[in-house]
Protein backbone atom coordinates (compact mmCIF):
# COMPACT_ATOMS: atom_id res chain seq x y z
CA UNK A 1 0.00 0.00 0.00
CA UNK A 2 2.76 2.40 0.98
CA UNK A 3 4.78 1.53 -2.13
CA UNK A 4 1.87 2.16 -4.48
CA UNK A 5 0.88 5.35 -2.66
CA UNK A 6 4.45 6.64 -2.78
CA UNK A 7 4.80 5.86 -6.49
CA UNK A 8 1.45 7.41 -7.31
CA UNK A 9 2.33 10.46 -5.24
CA UNK A 10 5.69 10.94 -6.93
CA UNK A 11 4.25 10.75 -10.43
CA UNK A 12 3.40 14.19 -11.73
CA UNK A 13 6.17 16.24 -10.20
CA UNK A 14 4.67 19.60 -11.09
CA UNK A 15 1.47 18.72 -9.22
CA UNK A 16 3.46 17.46 -6.23
CA UNK A 17 5.57 20.63 -6.17
CA UNK A 18 2.51 22.86 -6.40
CA UNK A 19 0.71 20.91 -3.68
CA UNK A 20 3.62 20.86 -1.27
CA UNK A 21 4.41 24.49 -2.03
CA UNK A 22 0.82 25.67 -1.65
CA UNK A 23 0.03 23.76 1.50
CA UNK A 24 3.53 24.50 2.82
CA UNK A 25 2.93 28.24 2.51
CA UNK A 26 -0.45 27.90 4.22
CA UNK A 27 1.22 26.06 7.09
CA UNK A 28 3.97 28.70 7.11
CA UNK A 29 1.27 31.29 7.71
CA UNK A 30 0.19 29.44 10.84
CA UNK A 31 3.73 28.67 12.00
CA UNK A 32 4.99 32.20 11.38
CA UNK A 33 2.07 33.78 13.20
CA UNK A 34 2.57 31.45 16.12
CA UNK A 35 6.28 32.25 15.93
CA UNK A 36 5.66 36.00 15.99
CA UNK A 37 3.30 35.51 18.90
CA UNK A 38 5.80 33.36 20.84
CA UNK A 39 8.62 35.78 20.01
CA UNK A 40 6.53 38.75 21.12
CA UNK A 41 5.65 36.99 24.34
CA UNK A 42 9.33 36.47 25.10
CA UNK A 43 10.16 40.06 24.16
CA UNK A 44 7.35 41.51 26.23
CA UNK A 45 8.25 39.56 29.35
CA UNK A 46 12.01 39.86 28.80
CA UNK A 47 12.30 42.78 31.22
CA UNK A 48 10.36 40.94 33.91
CA UNK A 49 12.27 37.71 33.32
CA UNK A 50 15.61 39.54 33.55
CA UNK A 51 14.67 42.01 36.28
CA UNK A 52 16.76 40.21 38.94
CA UNK A 53 13.80 40.64 41.30
CA UNK A 54 12.39 37.63 43.12
CA UNK A 55 9.10 39.34 43.97
CA UNK A 56 7.23 42.19 42.30
CA UNK A 57 5.08 44.29 44.61
CA UNK A 58 2.38 46.46 43.04
CA UNK A 59 -0.74 48.33 43.95
CA UNK A 60 -3.46 45.94 45.12
CA UNK A 61 -5.10 44.31 42.10
CA UNK A 62 -2.39 45.26 39.60
CA UNK A 63 -1.00 42.00 38.28
CA UNK A 64 0.89 42.99 35.15
CA UNK A 65 2.86 45.77 33.52
CA UNK A 66 1.27 46.21 30.09
CA UNK A 67 -1.48 48.85 29.88
CA UNK A 68 -1.72 49.15 33.64
CA UNK A 69 -0.84 51.75 36.27
CA UNK A 70 0.33 51.07 39.79
CA UNK A 71 0.83 53.51 42.64
CA UNK A 72 2.22 52.58 46.02
CA UNK A 73 2.83 55.00 48.89
CA UNK A 74 6.51 55.61 49.77
CA UNK A 75 5.85 54.03 53.12
CA UNK A 76 5.17 50.72 51.45
CA UNK A 77 8.83 50.53 50.39
CA UNK A 78 10.00 50.60 54.01
CA UNK A 79 7.29 48.18 55.08
CA UNK A 80 8.34 45.69 52.42
CA UNK A 81 12.00 46.13 53.33
CA UNK A 82 11.15 45.32 56.93
CA UNK A 83 9.76 41.89 56.03
CA UNK A 84 11.90 39.01 57.25
CA UNK A 85 14.34 37.45 54.71
CA UNK A 86 14.03 40.41 52.30
CA UNK A 87 17.57 41.12 51.10
CA UNK A 88 16.90 44.29 49.09
CA UNK A 89 14.11 46.49 47.80
CA UNK A 90 14.19 48.64 44.65
CA UNK A 91 11.38 51.16 44.17
CA UNK A 92 10.55 51.69 40.49
CA UNK A 93 8.65 54.38 38.66
CA UNK A 94 6.92 53.23 35.51
CA UNK A 95 4.75 54.74 32.82
CA UNK A 96 4.08 54.11 29.15
CA UNK A 97 5.35 57.15 27.23
CA UNK A 98 7.39 58.28 24.27
CA UNK A 99 11.10 58.43 23.57
CA UNK A 100 11.90 61.16 21.08
CA UNK A 101 15.07 60.74 19.04
CA UNK A 102 14.86 64.11 17.28
CA UNK A 103 11.94 63.81 14.89
CA UNK A 104 11.61 60.07 15.51
CA UNK A 105 9.20 59.05 18.26
CA UNK A 106 8.81 55.64 19.75
CA UNK A 107 6.39 54.22 22.27
CA UNK A 108 8.28 52.96 25.32
CA UNK A 109 7.99 51.64 28.82
CA UNK A 110 9.75 54.36 30.81
CA UNK A 111 11.44 53.00 33.91
CA UNK A 112 12.69 55.32 36.67
CA UNK A 113 15.65 53.68 38.48
CA UNK A 114 17.04 54.81 41.86
CA UNK A 115 20.83 55.31 42.02
CA UNK A 116 21.27 52.20 44.16
CA UNK A 117 18.90 49.96 42.16
CA UNK A 118 19.65 46.34 42.99
CA UNK A 119 17.06 45.11 40.47
CA UNK A 120 15.18 46.38 37.43
CA UNK A 121 18.23 47.61 35.49
CA UNK A 122 18.71 46.84 31.79
CA UNK A 123 20.15 43.32 31.70
CA UNK A 124 22.33 43.60 28.62
CA UNK A 125 24.28 46.68 27.69
CA UNK A 126 25.90 47.17 24.28
CA UNK A 127 27.79 50.30 25.25
CA UNK A 128 27.92 52.68 28.21
CA UNK A 129 26.37 52.25 31.65
CA UNK A 130 23.28 50.37 32.82
CA UNK A 131 22.30 52.95 35.45
CA UNK A 132 21.39 56.48 34.34
CA UNK A 133 22.02 59.41 36.65
CA UNK A 134 20.09 62.70 36.68
CA UNK A 135 19.80 64.13 33.16
CA UNK A 136 20.76 60.80 31.64
CA UNK A 137 19.00 57.93 29.90
CA UNK A 138 19.65 54.40 28.73
CA UNK A 139 17.81 53.60 25.49
CA UNK A 140 17.55 50.68 23.11
CA UNK A 141 20.57 50.36 20.84
CA UNK A 142 18.62 49.46 17.69
CA UNK A 143 16.32 52.47 17.97
CA UNK A 144 19.25 54.75 18.76
CA UNK A 145 21.19 53.49 15.74
CA UNK A 146 18.13 53.93 13.51
CA UNK A 147 17.97 57.55 14.70
CA UNK A 148 21.71 58.02 14.28
CA UNK A 149 22.27 58.55 17.98
CA UNK A 150 25.18 57.14 19.98
CA UNK A 151 26.45 57.65 23.52
CA UNK A 152 26.35 61.34 24.34
CA UNK A 153 23.45 61.93 21.98
CA UNK A 154 20.29 63.71 23.09
CA UNK A 155 16.82 62.24 23.52
CA UNK A 156 13.63 63.55 25.05
CA UNK A 157 11.80 61.35 27.54
CA UNK A 158 8.82 62.49 29.66
CA UNK A 159 9.42 65.90 28.12
CA UNK A 160 12.92 66.04 29.58
CA UNK A 161 15.98 66.51 27.37
CA UNK A 162 18.39 63.75 28.43
CA UNK A 163 21.84 62.54 27.43
CA UNK A 164 22.22 58.95 26.29
CA UNK A 165 24.72 57.23 28.59
CA UNK A 166 23.88 53.61 27.81
CA UNK A 167 22.62 51.54 24.93
CA UNK A 168 20.70 48.43 25.94
CA UNK A 169 20.16 45.22 23.98
CA UNK A 170 16.92 43.25 23.57
CA UNK A 171 14.79 46.07 24.94
CA UNK A 172 12.63 46.44 21.85
CA UNK A 173 9.40 44.60 21.14
CA UNK A 174 6.88 44.53 18.33
CA UNK A 175 4.97 47.38 20.03
CA UNK A 176 7.43 49.37 22.08
CA UNK A 177 10.90 49.68 23.59
CA UNK A 178 12.11 50.14 27.16
CA UNK A 179 13.92 53.28 28.25
CA UNK A 180 15.59 53.87 31.61
CA UNK A 181 15.90 57.23 33.35
CA UNK A 182 16.95 58.40 36.80
CA UNK A 183 14.33 57.99 39.52
CA UNK A 184 14.75 61.66 40.48
CA UNK A 185 14.08 62.91 36.94
CA UNK A 186 10.99 60.69 36.65
CA UNK A 187 9.74 61.78 40.10
CA UNK A 188 10.18 65.45 39.15
CA UNK A 189 7.61 65.23 36.39
CA UNK A 190 5.23 62.88 38.19
CA UNK A 191 2.90 64.42 40.76
CA UNK A 192 2.97 62.96 44.27
CA UNK A 193 5.56 60.78 45.87
CA UNK A 194 4.16 57.36 45.05
CA UNK A 195 6.25 54.61 43.47
CA UNK A 196 4.93 52.23 40.83
CA UNK A 197 6.46 48.95 41.91
CA UNK A 198 8.80 47.60 44.56
CA UNK A 199 11.23 44.96 43.34
CA UNK A 200 12.27 42.57 46.08
CA UNK A 201 15.28 40.31 46.29
CA UNK A 202 15.07 37.63 48.98
CA UNK A 203 17.92 36.14 50.98
CA UNK A 204 19.52 33.03 49.50
CA UNK A 205 17.52 29.93 50.36
CA UNK A 206 14.32 31.82 51.08
CA UNK A 207 11.20 31.02 49.08
CA UNK A 208 9.92 33.81 46.83
CA UNK A 209 6.37 32.43 47.09
CA UNK A 210 6.51 32.52 50.88
CA UNK A 211 7.92 36.03 50.91
CA UNK A 212 5.23 37.23 48.48
CA UNK A 213 2.56 35.76 50.76
CA UNK A 214 4.09 37.40 53.85
CA UNK A 215 4.28 40.79 52.06
CA UNK A 216 0.63 40.59 51.06
CA UNK A 217 -0.26 39.63 54.63
CA UNK A 218 1.71 42.35 56.38
CA UNK A 219 1.70 45.31 53.97
CA UNK A 220 -1.71 46.71 53.27
CA UNK A 221 -3.01 47.61 49.79
CA UNK A 222 -0.44 45.66 47.78
CA UNK A 223 -0.29 42.68 45.50
CA UNK A 224 2.93 40.67 45.68
CA UNK A 225 3.79 38.12 43.03
CA UNK A 226 6.85 36.10 42.25
CA UNK A 227 8.71 37.15 39.14
CA UNK A 228 7.46 34.12 37.21
CA UNK A 229 3.86 34.69 38.31
CA UNK A 230 4.08 38.36 37.30
CA UNK A 231 5.53 37.40 33.89
CA UNK A 232 2.82 34.76 33.53
CA UNK A 233 0.14 37.41 34.04
CA UNK A 234 1.84 39.56 31.43
CA UNK A 235 1.83 36.68 28.97
CA UNK A 236 -1.85 36.07 29.67
CA UNK A 237 -2.70 39.69 28.83
CA UNK A 238 -0.78 39.46 25.56
CA UNK A 239 -2.44 36.14 24.77
CA UNK A 240 -5.91 37.54 25.46
CA UNK A 241 -5.17 40.41 23.08
CA UNK A 242 -3.79 38.21 20.30
CA UNK A 243 -5.84 35.03 20.54
CA UNK A 244 -8.68 36.15 18.28
CA UNK A 245 -6.33 37.37 15.56
CA UNK A 246 -4.29 34.20 15.78
CA UNK A 247 -7.40 32.03 15.61
CA UNK A 248 -8.71 33.84 12.55
CA UNK A 249 -5.37 33.70 10.75
CA UNK A 250 -4.74 30.07 11.73
CA UNK A 251 -8.20 29.18 10.46
CA UNK A 252 -7.44 30.96 7.19
CA UNK A 253 -4.19 29.02 6.88
CA UNK A 254 -6.00 25.77 7.66
CA UNK A 255 -8.69 26.41 5.05
CA UNK A 256 -6.19 27.42 2.35
CA UNK A 257 -4.11 24.32 3.09
CA UNK A 258 -7.20 22.13 3.07
CA UNK A 259 -8.43 23.56 -0.22
CA UNK A 260 -5.07 23.10 -1.96
CA UNK A 261 -4.56 19.59 -0.60
CA UNK A 262 -8.13 18.47 -1.25
CA UNK A 263 -7.98 19.73 -4.82
CA UNK A 264 -4.65 18.06 -5.41
CA UNK A 265 -5.61 14.65 -3.96
CA UNK A 266 -8.96 14.79 -5.71
CA UNK A 267 -7.50 15.53 -9.14
CA UNK A 268 -4.74 12.95 -8.61
CA UNK A 269 -7.37 10.32 -7.75
CA UNK A 270 -9.56 11.41 -10.64
CA UNK A 271 -6.68 10.99 -13.07
CA UNK A 272 -6.14 7.46 -11.74
CA UNK A 273 -9.80 6.56 -11.52
CA UNK A 274 -9.39 3.77 -14.05
CA UNK A 275 -6.38 2.36 -12.21
CA UNK A 276 -8.29 2.26 -8.93
CA UNK A 277 -11.02 0.43 -10.84
CA UNK A 278 -8.41 -2.10 -12.02
CA UNK A 279 -7.18 -2.60 -8.47
CA UNK A 280 -10.76 -3.10 -7.33
CA UNK A 281 -11.35 -5.63 -10.08
CA UNK A 282 -8.15 -7.48 -9.22
CA UNK A 283 -9.39 -7.86 -5.65
CA UNK A 284 -7.76 -5.04 -3.69
CA UNK A 285 -9.71 -4.43 -0.50
CA UNK A 286 -11.39 -1.12 0.24
CA UNK A 287 -8.95 -0.72 3.12
CA UNK A 288 -6.03 -0.97 0.71
CA UNK A 289 -7.53 1.50 -1.75
CA UNK A 290 -8.61 4.05 0.85
CA UNK A 291 -5.34 3.66 2.72
CA UNK A 292 -3.45 4.37 -0.47
CA UNK A 293 -5.31 7.68 -0.90
CA UNK A 294 -4.85 8.66 2.74
CA UNK A 295 -1.11 7.90 2.57
CA UNK A 296 -0.79 10.11 -0.52
CA UNK A 297 -2.52 12.93 1.33
CA UNK A 298 -0.29 12.34 4.35
CA UNK A 299 2.83 12.37 2.17
CA UNK A 300 1.69 15.69 0.74
CA UNK A 301 1.05 17.27 4.11
CA UNK A 302 4.29 15.85 5.54
CA UNK A 303 6.19 17.48 2.70
CA UNK A 304 4.21 20.68 3.20
CA UNK A 305 4.97 20.63 6.93
CA UNK A 306 8.67 20.27 6.18
CA UNK A 307 8.48 23.20 3.76
CA UNK A 308 6.51 25.25 6.29
CA UNK A 309 9.05 24.56 9.02
CA UNK A 310 11.99 25.31 6.75
CA UNK A 311 10.51 28.62 5.59
CA UNK A 312 9.67 29.58 9.19
CA UNK A 313 13.21 28.78 10.34
CA UNK A 314 14.52 31.05 7.58
CA UNK A 315 12.04 33.74 8.64
CA UNK A 316 13.22 33.55 12.27
CA UNK A 317 16.70 34.46 11.03
CA UNK A 318 15.71 37.04 8.42
CA UNK A 319 12.77 38.93 9.94
CA UNK A 320 14.56 40.35 13.04
CA UNK A 321 17.26 41.75 10.73
CA UNK A 322 14.71 43.50 8.55
CA UNK A 323 12.25 44.43 11.32
CA UNK A 324 14.19 44.80 14.58
CA UNK A 325 11.10 44.90 16.77
CA UNK A 326 9.73 41.62 15.43
CA UNK A 327 11.10 38.33 16.72
CA UNK A 328 9.97 34.85 15.72
CA UNK A 329 10.34 31.90 18.03
CA UNK A 330 9.39 28.38 16.96
CA UNK A 331 7.73 26.72 19.93
CA UNK A 332 7.38 22.95 20.21
CA UNK A 333 3.66 23.20 20.98
CA UNK A 334 3.18 25.28 17.82
CA UNK A 335 4.91 22.62 15.70
CA UNK A 336 2.78 19.92 17.34
CA UNK A 337 -0.35 21.99 16.66
CA UNK A 338 0.54 22.47 13.00
CA UNK A 339 1.40 18.76 12.68
CA UNK A 340 -2.06 17.92 14.01
CA UNK A 341 -3.61 20.46 11.64
CA UNK A 342 -1.66 18.84 8.77
CA UNK A 343 -3.00 15.42 9.70
CA UNK A 344 -6.55 16.78 9.82
CA UNK A 345 -6.01 18.40 6.40
CA UNK A 346 -4.79 15.06 5.01
CA UNK A 347 -7.75 13.18 6.48
CA UNK A 348 -10.31 15.69 5.21
CA UNK A 349 -8.65 15.97 1.80
CA UNK A 350 -8.94 12.21 1.38
CA UNK A 351 -12.70 12.08 1.99
CA UNK A 352 -13.89 13.09 -1.50
CA UNK A 353 -11.44 10.85 -3.38
CA UNK A 354 -12.38 7.95 -1.11
CA UNK A 355 -16.06 8.51 -1.87
CA UNK A 356 -15.18 8.51 -5.55
CA UNK A 357 -13.31 5.23 -5.27
CA UNK A 358 -16.12 3.72 -3.22
CA UNK A 359 -18.52 4.48 -6.06
CA UNK A 360 -16.29 2.89 -8.72
CA UNK A 361 -17.73 -0.12 -10.48
CA UNK A 362 -14.92 -2.67 -10.91
CA UNK A 363 -16.74 -4.23 -13.86
CA UNK A 364 -15.95 -1.11 -15.94
CA UNK A 365 -12.41 -2.40 -16.48
CA UNK A 366 -13.78 -4.99 -18.90
CA UNK A 367 -14.84 -2.22 -21.18
CA UNK A 368 -12.46 -1.01 -23.81
CA UNK A 369 -10.83 2.30 -23.04
CA UNK A 370 -11.29 1.97 -19.28
CA UNK A 371 -7.64 2.79 -18.72
CA UNK A 372 -5.14 4.97 -20.48
Amino acid at each position, binding site marked *: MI*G*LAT*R*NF*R*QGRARVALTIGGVGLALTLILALDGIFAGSERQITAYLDNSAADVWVSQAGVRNLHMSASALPRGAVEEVAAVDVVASVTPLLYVTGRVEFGAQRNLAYIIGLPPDAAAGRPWQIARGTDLPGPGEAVVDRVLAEQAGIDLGGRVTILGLPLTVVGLSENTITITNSIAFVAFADFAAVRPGDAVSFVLVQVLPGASAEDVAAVIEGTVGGVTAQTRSAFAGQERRVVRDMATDVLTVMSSAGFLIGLAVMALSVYTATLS*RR*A*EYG*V*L*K*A*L*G*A*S*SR*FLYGSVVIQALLGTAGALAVGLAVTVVLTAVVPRVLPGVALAIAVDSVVKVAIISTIIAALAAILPIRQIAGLD*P*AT*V*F*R*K*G*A*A*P
Partner: protein
Amino acid sequence: MTAVTLDLRRVTKRFGEGDAEVVAVRDVSLAVAPGEVVLIMGPSGSGKTTLLSMMGALLRPTMGSIHLDGTVISDLSEGGLPDIRLHHFGFVFQDFNLLSALTAIENVALVAELAGLSGRAARTKAIGLLTELGLGRRLDFLPEKLSGGEKQRVSIARALVNDPTVISLTNRPQTWTAESATRSRGCSGGSPRNRVEAW
Protein backbone atom coordinates in the same frame (compact mmCIF):
# COMPACT_ATOMS: atom_id res chain seq x y z
CA MET B 1 -12.67 -31.52 -5.91
CA THR B 2 -16.03 -31.13 -7.68
CA ALA B 3 -16.22 -32.15 -11.33
CA VAL B 4 -17.40 -28.69 -12.32
CA THR B 5 -15.22 -25.74 -11.26
CA LEU B 6 -17.37 -22.86 -12.40
CA ASP B 7 -21.10 -23.39 -12.63
CA LEU B 8 -23.64 -20.78 -13.73
CA ARG B 9 -27.26 -21.76 -13.14
CA ARG B 10 -30.00 -19.84 -14.95
CA VAL B 11 -28.22 -16.53 -14.59
CA THR B 12 -30.01 -13.33 -15.58
CA LYS B 13 -28.77 -9.76 -15.30
CA ARG B 14 -31.07 -6.78 -15.68
CA PHE B 15 -30.06 -3.11 -15.60
CA GLY B 16 -32.53 -0.30 -14.92
CA GLU B 17 -36.22 -0.54 -14.17
CA GLY B 18 -39.56 -0.19 -15.95
CA ASP B 19 -39.33 1.14 -19.49
CA ALA B 20 -35.61 1.70 -19.09
CA GLU B 21 -34.95 -1.89 -18.14
CA VAL B 22 -32.33 -3.72 -20.17
CA VAL B 23 -31.82 -7.46 -19.90
CA ALA B 24 -28.13 -7.92 -20.64
CA VAL B 25 -28.00 -11.65 -19.88
CA ARG B 26 -31.07 -13.86 -19.86
CA ASP B 27 -31.29 -17.28 -18.24
CA VAL B 28 -27.81 -18.52 -19.05
CA SER B 29 -26.49 -21.79 -17.67
CA LEU B 30 -22.90 -22.78 -18.17
CA ALA B 31 -20.55 -25.30 -16.58
CA VAL B 32 -16.78 -25.11 -16.88
CA ALA B 33 -14.89 -28.26 -16.02
CA PRO B 34 -11.31 -28.34 -14.78
CA GLY B 35 -8.82 -27.86 -17.57
CA GLU B 36 -11.47 -26.67 -19.96
CA VAL B 37 -11.08 -23.63 -22.20
CA VAL B 38 -14.36 -21.86 -22.94
CA LEU B 39 -14.78 -19.19 -25.59
CA ILE B 40 -17.77 -16.89 -25.42
CA MET B 41 -18.41 -15.27 -28.76
CA GLY B 42 -21.12 -12.96 -29.93
CA PRO B 43 -21.91 -9.62 -31.57
CA SER B 44 -21.30 -6.36 -29.77
CA GLY B 45 -23.97 -5.73 -27.13
CA SER B 46 -24.90 -9.36 -26.76
CA GLY B 47 -23.91 -9.46 -23.08
CA LYS B 48 -20.47 -11.13 -23.22
CA THR B 49 -18.83 -8.60 -20.92
CA THR B 50 -21.73 -8.68 -18.46
CA LEU B 51 -21.59 -12.46 -18.37
CA LEU B 52 -17.83 -12.43 -17.89
CA SER B 53 -18.17 -9.80 -15.14
CA MET B 54 -20.61 -12.03 -13.29
CA MET B 55 -18.40 -15.07 -13.78
CA GLY B 56 -15.45 -13.07 -12.41
CA ALA B 57 -17.30 -12.00 -9.27
CA LEU B 58 -17.29 -8.41 -10.44
CA LEU B 59 -21.05 -8.23 -10.85
CA ARG B 60 -23.84 -10.08 -9.09
CA PRO B 61 -26.65 -11.59 -11.12
CA THR B 62 -30.22 -10.36 -10.76
CA MET B 63 -31.42 -13.96 -10.82
CA GLY B 64 -29.78 -17.36 -10.76
CA SER B 65 -26.63 -18.49 -9.03
CA ILE B 66 -22.91 -18.83 -9.70
CA HIS B 67 -20.90 -21.58 -8.04
CA LEU B 68 -17.13 -21.71 -7.81
CA ASP B 69 -15.71 -24.98 -6.53
CA GLY B 70 -18.99 -25.54 -4.67
CA THR B 71 -19.18 -22.04 -3.13
CA VAL B 72 -22.14 -19.92 -4.20
CA ILE B 73 -20.23 -16.73 -4.98
CA SER B 74 -23.35 -14.95 -6.23
CA ASP B 75 -24.67 -15.03 -2.65
CA LEU B 76 -21.54 -13.51 -1.14
CA SER B 77 -21.73 -10.00 0.29
CA GLU B 78 -20.08 -7.13 -1.57
CA GLY B 79 -17.25 -7.24 0.95
CA GLY B 80 -16.54 -10.91 0.28
CA LEU B 81 -16.14 -10.60 -3.50
CA PRO B 82 -12.68 -8.93 -3.65
CA ASP B 83 -11.15 -11.87 -1.81
CA ILE B 84 -12.72 -14.32 -4.26
CA ARG B 85 -11.43 -12.31 -7.22
CA LEU B 86 -7.97 -12.05 -5.73
CA HIS B 87 -7.49 -15.74 -4.95
CA HIS B 88 -9.59 -17.51 -7.60
CA PHE B 89 -9.57 -15.35 -10.71
CA GLY B 90 -6.87 -14.03 -12.97
CA PHE B 91 -7.91 -11.28 -15.35
CA VAL B 92 -6.33 -10.19 -18.61
CA PHE B 93 -8.17 -7.05 -19.58
CA GLN B 94 -8.47 -5.93 -23.15
CA ASP B 95 -6.38 -2.81 -22.58
CA PHE B 96 -4.00 -4.66 -20.21
CA ASN B 97 -4.70 -1.96 -17.61
CA LEU B 98 -1.29 -1.90 -15.96
CA LEU B 99 -0.70 0.59 -13.18
CA SER B 100 1.29 3.40 -14.76
CA ALA B 101 3.33 4.35 -11.69
CA LEU B 102 4.61 0.81 -11.12
CA THR B 103 7.27 -1.10 -13.02
CA ALA B 104 6.56 -4.45 -14.69
CA ILE B 105 7.74 -6.41 -11.68
CA GLU B 106 5.81 -4.19 -9.27
CA ASN B 107 2.60 -4.56 -11.28
CA VAL B 108 2.83 -8.32 -10.89
CA ALA B 109 4.20 -8.47 -7.34
CA LEU B 110 1.53 -6.09 -6.02
CA VAL B 111 -1.24 -8.58 -6.80
CA ALA B 112 0.67 -11.34 -5.03
CA GLU B 113 1.19 -9.08 -2.03
CA LEU B 114 -2.52 -8.25 -1.98
CA ALA B 115 -3.12 -12.01 -1.73
CA GLY B 116 -0.93 -12.18 1.36
CA LEU B 117 2.55 -12.98 0.05
CA SER B 118 5.47 -11.16 1.68
CA GLY B 119 7.12 -8.46 -0.40
CA ARG B 120 10.20 -10.58 -1.03
CA ALA B 121 8.25 -13.74 -1.96
CA ALA B 122 5.92 -11.74 -4.22
CA ARG B 123 8.90 -10.21 -5.99
CA THR B 124 10.59 -13.56 -6.46
CA LYS B 125 7.43 -15.04 -7.93
CA ALA B 126 6.92 -12.03 -10.19
CA ILE B 127 10.51 -12.23 -11.47
CA GLY B 128 10.06 -15.93 -12.24
CA LEU B 129 6.86 -15.38 -14.18
CA LEU B 130 8.08 -12.36 -16.10
CA THR B 131 11.33 -14.12 -16.99
CA GLU B 132 9.40 -17.12 -18.30
CA LEU B 133 7.33 -14.72 -20.38
CA GLY B 134 10.50 -13.27 -21.88
CA LEU B 135 10.54 -10.05 -19.90
CA GLY B 136 13.63 -10.74 -17.79
CA ARG B 137 15.29 -7.62 -19.19
CA ARG B 138 12.23 -5.44 -18.77
CA LEU B 139 11.51 -6.03 -15.09
CA ASP B 140 12.10 -2.47 -13.96
CA PHE B 141 10.47 -0.77 -16.92
CA LEU B 142 7.40 1.37 -16.43
CA PRO B 143 4.43 0.46 -18.68
CA GLU B 144 5.03 3.55 -20.81
CA LYS B 145 8.41 2.10 -21.79
CA LEU B 146 6.99 -1.28 -22.79
CA SER B 147 5.66 -2.30 -26.20
CA GLY B 148 2.05 -3.49 -26.61
CA GLY B 149 3.13 -7.11 -26.62
CA GLU B 150 5.27 -6.64 -23.51
CA LYS B 151 2.41 -4.97 -21.67
CA GLN B 152 0.25 -7.89 -22.65
CA ARG B 153 2.71 -10.37 -21.17
CA VAL B 154 2.99 -8.36 -17.94
CA SER B 155 -0.80 -8.47 -17.77
CA ILE B 156 -0.70 -12.26 -18.25
CA ALA B 157 1.93 -12.63 -15.50
CA ARG B 158 -0.27 -10.56 -13.22
CA ALA B 159 -3.23 -12.81 -13.97
CA LEU B 160 -1.21 -15.93 -13.21
CA VAL B 161 0.68 -14.79 -10.12
CA ASN B 162 -1.85 -15.97 -7.55
CA ASP B 163 -2.34 -19.40 -9.20
CA PRO B 164 -6.02 -18.69 -9.95
CA THR B 165 -8.72 -21.28 -10.38
CA VAL B 166 -10.02 -19.47 -13.46
CA ILE B 167 -8.28 -17.07 -15.80
CA SER B 168 -10.46 -14.76 -17.79
CA LEU B 169 -9.42 -12.90 -20.94
CA THR B 170 -11.63 -10.26 -22.44
CA ASN B 171 -12.05 -9.38 -26.14
CA ARG B 172 -8.74 -10.73 -27.31
CA PRO B 173 -7.12 -7.57 -28.65
CA GLN B 174 -5.66 -7.30 -32.08
CA THR B 175 -2.31 -6.87 -30.45
CA TRP B 176 -2.48 -10.37 -28.98
CA THR B 177 0.79 -11.65 -30.24
CA ALA B 178 1.70 -15.15 -31.18
CA GLU B 179 4.61 -14.93 -28.76
CA SER B 180 2.30 -13.97 -25.88
CA ALA B 181 -0.08 -16.77 -26.70
CA THR B 182 2.69 -19.35 -26.96
CA ARG B 183 4.52 -18.22 -23.87
CA SER B 184 1.40 -17.95 -21.71
CA ARG B 185 0.33 -21.48 -22.66
CA GLY B 186 3.71 -22.86 -21.69
CA CYS B 187 4.08 -20.74 -18.58
CA SER B 188 4.75 -22.94 -15.52
CA GLY B 189 4.51 -20.19 -12.94
CA GLY B 190 0.74 -20.22 -13.05
CA SER B 191 -1.41 -23.07 -14.27
CA PRO B 192 -5.08 -22.08 -14.19
CA ARG B 193 -7.40 -25.01 -14.24
CA ASN B 194 -9.79 -23.18 -16.53
CA ARG B 195 -9.67 -20.41 -19.04
CA VAL B 196 -12.64 -18.38 -20.15
CA GLU B 197 -12.20 -16.03 -23.07
CA ALA B 198 -14.71 -13.55 -24.39
CA TRP B 199 -14.23 -12.35 -27.99
